[in-house]
């Protein structure tokens, strides 16, 4: 340890002066791009008197705060239980269908919250299939005699959001469990810790950064959700922001509430990070998979049952419902229209572009802010990473409003230059094309890739980079040849999350899209706006199916990767291979 420390101290001497500077600059620019819409929001917020705060404080905020806190607490507990529990189940135990379950647990990611909310309202409605069956079984013949409590409630919202958002936790925790040093767990076992003790005292604390990343993503989604909350009648803070803006036409007031919320969110995230400030998660051990324990008999069946519940509730039931609704309407719709196909192509195209850009930006930011040595000194790169993550902490609609001004400013600047060059006024370049959407998605979902890649980097010991640099590789070369291969599970995971999130994105798409342009989500929304949800079933199923492909593909590569990497000496050892020596250059 002291040796590597000494190396780290001396490292700067080997570095060429410009190396690292480029990454910092990129990170700073990206952070600036995220700040732009927030600054434009702050500008809007200045425009108002503070008079409405008296009204809000008296009549709105107490209830909205309580609802939001309860919703977050409920969803937080549910996603942690479901996500961590299922990740541990498939990592530590072997039982029938474990292989399929490993990726099937990710499927709810393909279902947007607003779709699952209306699917469940229909499924659980007094005239829906569940209650009808129940009445038949119990011998009642009218909902007037017997019906269950209404889904439109806070517990209903917790249930619906919890079961679609748990994959955020599952994904990050699973990657952690699968690449975790098995030797630590074995050491704990040899020292006499029980099977449960290993989970509670070793695995869980080690997985804490991963759980924190997953839960905070799920909670931010919950906090900023408008579709499901509004549909289920839960008055959250975000719904209040929305009401203030839309119903009372008070954008300034809405911006003030949104920025206050943002401040609280940032404070909470900083608090969580502060809580594990002094902890290090990097492992210098060769990574080796946990040996799953084979379950037999009743235990195996219990594991199958437990493992599949989240998939059934979060995906199978709503997807089946959509499939049935689509089937019932196929003769009315007359197949799939060209417009819907164009919408599907737009959706996949933009989501793919946004994923590529978001990953690249996330990598730049995470790399610029990586720990170069065992030091907790504040780094400018870290600050950029925190700032770059802010886009996820504001509701999509609010971010989109904030983006309008920067986009139009750029459009005017570009337009002026182009007009000078060509003599033609080009109109609005960003807002008139889908470029605006790609940028908006990137700024919104940057937190996902930054978070996952930072967590990934935190598990790669700085000594690997030090060794690589000592052997004469450049900073970027080290990233490409040492870290990128090690980061592949994290890259795959964040690519998947960003892609499906971008595909489901609605509020920013509605506001910033060019003319004559539809995505599956806006198509579905258009149906929903008429109140004909079930006629949107085709588009909803399209979103779910389009989301399915990357979920399955990436989940499979991700898991393979996890296994390969976990094989003794495979990937992790690559960095320590003698091979780099062949290209050894004296600095």
């Amino acid at each position: 340890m002291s040796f590597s420390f000494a190396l780290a101290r001396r490292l700067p001497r080997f570095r060429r002066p410009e190396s690292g500077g480029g990454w910092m600059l990129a990170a700073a620019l990206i952070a600036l791009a995220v700040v732009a819409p927030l600054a434009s929001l702050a500008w809007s917020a200045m425009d108002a008197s503070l008079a409405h705060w008296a009204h809000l404080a008296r009549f709105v905020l107490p209830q909205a705060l309580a609802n939001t806190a309860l919703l977050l607490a409920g969803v937080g507990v549910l996603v942690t239980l479901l996500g961590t529990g299922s990740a541990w189940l498939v990592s530590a135990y072997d039982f029938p269908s474990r292989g399929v379950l490993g990726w099937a647990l990710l499927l709810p990611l393909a279902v947007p919250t607003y779709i699952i909310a209306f699917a469940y309202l229909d499924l659980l409605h007094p005239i829906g299939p569940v209650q009808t069956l129940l009445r038949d079984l119990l011998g009642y013949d009218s909902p007037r005699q017997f019906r269950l409590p209404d889904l439109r409630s806070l517990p209903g919202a917790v249930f619906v959001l919890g079961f679609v958002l748990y994959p955020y936790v599952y994904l990050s925790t699973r990657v952690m469990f699968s690449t975790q040093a098995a030797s630590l767990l074995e050491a704990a076992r040899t020292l006499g810790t029980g099977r449960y003790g290993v989970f509670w005292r070793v695995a869980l604390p080690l997985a804490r950064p991963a759980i924190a990343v997953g839960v905070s993503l799920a909670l931010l989604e919950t906090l900023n959700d408008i579709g499901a909350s509004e549909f289920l009648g839960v008055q959250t803070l975000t719904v209040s922001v929305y009401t203030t803006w839309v119903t009372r036409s008070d954008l300034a007031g809405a911006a003030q509430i949104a920025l206050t919320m943002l401040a609280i969110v940032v404070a909470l995230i900083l608090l969580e990070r502060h809580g594990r400030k002094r902890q290090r998660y990097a492992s210098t051990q060769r990574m080796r998979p946990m040996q799953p324990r084979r379950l037999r008999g009743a235990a195996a069946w219990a594991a199958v049952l437990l493992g599949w519940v989240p998939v059934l509730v979060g995906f199978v039931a709503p997807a089946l419902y959509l499939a049935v609704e689509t089937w019932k309407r196929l003769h009315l719709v007359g197949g799939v229209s060209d417009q819907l196909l164009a919408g599907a192509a737009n959706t996949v195209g933009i989501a793919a572009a946004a994923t590529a850009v978001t990953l690249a930006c996330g990598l730049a930011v995470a790399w610029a802010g990586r720990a170069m040595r065992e030091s907790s000194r504040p780094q400018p790169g870290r600050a950029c990473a925190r700032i770059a993550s802010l886009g996820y902490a504001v509701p999509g609609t609010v971010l989109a409003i904030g983006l309008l001004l920067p986009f139009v400013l750029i459009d005017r600047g570009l337009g002026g230059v182009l007009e000078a060059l060509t003599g033609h006024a080009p109109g609005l370049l960003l807002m008139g094309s889908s470029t605006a959407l790609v940028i908006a998605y990137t700024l919104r979902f940057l937190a996902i890739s930054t978070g996952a890649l930072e967590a990934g980097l935190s598990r790669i010991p700085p000594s690997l980079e030090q060794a690589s640099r000592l052997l004469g590789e450049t900073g970027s070369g080290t990233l490409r040849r040492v870290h990128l291969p090690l980061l592949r599970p994290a890259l795959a995971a964040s690519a998947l999350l960003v892609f499906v999130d971008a595909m489901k994105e609605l509020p920013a798409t509605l506001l910033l899209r060019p003319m004559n342009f539809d995505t599956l989500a806006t198509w579905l929304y258009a149906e929903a706006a008429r109140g004909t949800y079930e006629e949107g079933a085709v588009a909803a199923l399209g979103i779910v199916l389009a989301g399915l492909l990357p979920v399955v593909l990436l989940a499979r590569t991700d898991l393979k990767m996890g296994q390969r990497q976990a094989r003794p000496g495979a990937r992790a050892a690559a960095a320590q291979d003698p091979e780099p020596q062949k290209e050894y250059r004296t600095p």
Partner: protein
Amino acid sequence: MKRTPFSLSALRALALAAAATLGGNALAAGEVSLYTTREPKLIQPLLDAYTKKSGVKVNTVFVKDGLIERVKAEGDKSPADVLMTVDIGNLIDLVEAGVTQPVQSRTLEEVIPANLRGSDGSWYALSLRDRVLYVANDLDLKAFSYEELADPKWKGKVCIRSGQHPYNTALIAAMISHDGAEATEQWLRGVKANLARKAAGGDRDVARDILGAICDIGIANAYYVGHMKNAEPGTDARKWGDAIKVIRPTFGKSKGTHVNVSGAAVARHAPNRDNAVGLLEYLVSEEAQSLYAKANYEYPIRKGVELDPVVASFGPLEVDPLPVTEIAKHRKQASELVDKVGFDN
């Protein structure tokens, strides 16, 4: 011949290409660009009919919220010609935000009654939407006033969407104009106490929840009934529609039914102003108004247009004589009252 530096000519070519692909719509004639908060499927048949008739291509972008913010930000570069929205409050907001321009048209002035358009021609209503009572079929109820919704005899039997929805704030604003803020607040408390479930969901959920025996009566817009009762037999929507009948409530004093509007305005920086006026004029034509009535089940703004049989079965529409601008004036107050009584909690 002087050679242009390569980089500059390349840049110029690139810029031209960009201008041609992205900015083309500003140059071409025979187009009109529509920013709308109305559901595209509802208005698409109207727009298609217009294109067929006039040869003018209609570009649309369906914006949910933030129509004003977007047009404002785009400023004089905005490609928008026509801004279309529902709810009188939203129309007035457009005018007050300065994103519209007044236009004069004899056709529009002849067809649209004076109280349903801006006096200077800065906005025009295109259709009427009455907010009515959905009643369980087996309930013996003939007439109803909005005030009666607060009657304790309906405890646990009333369904309605969020009080903050523009359809409801407009209704509440009208009640403030009629009965005063204090009486309206009491009324809201009474309705809140009568709710069978959370004030949430959409208007059609009222019919669905009546079928599901969650409630007996509820407030929702009339045109949804046209959609539901005309839906294909066997579909869910048809079952919901068939479970209810419609009563047009009145305000106690005025004996009129609350009506909101859908409408449009010409954008301030409209690049195709003439086509914009042309589109508006088409939308109040016999043909278009008939589509509003038959395909959309909205109440036509033009007199003498034949109604859909389902809508006609509700009987004649006695519109609340309150000027719609009066409703827009009280909208914010209505929204604050909803918060105050915790209607949506």
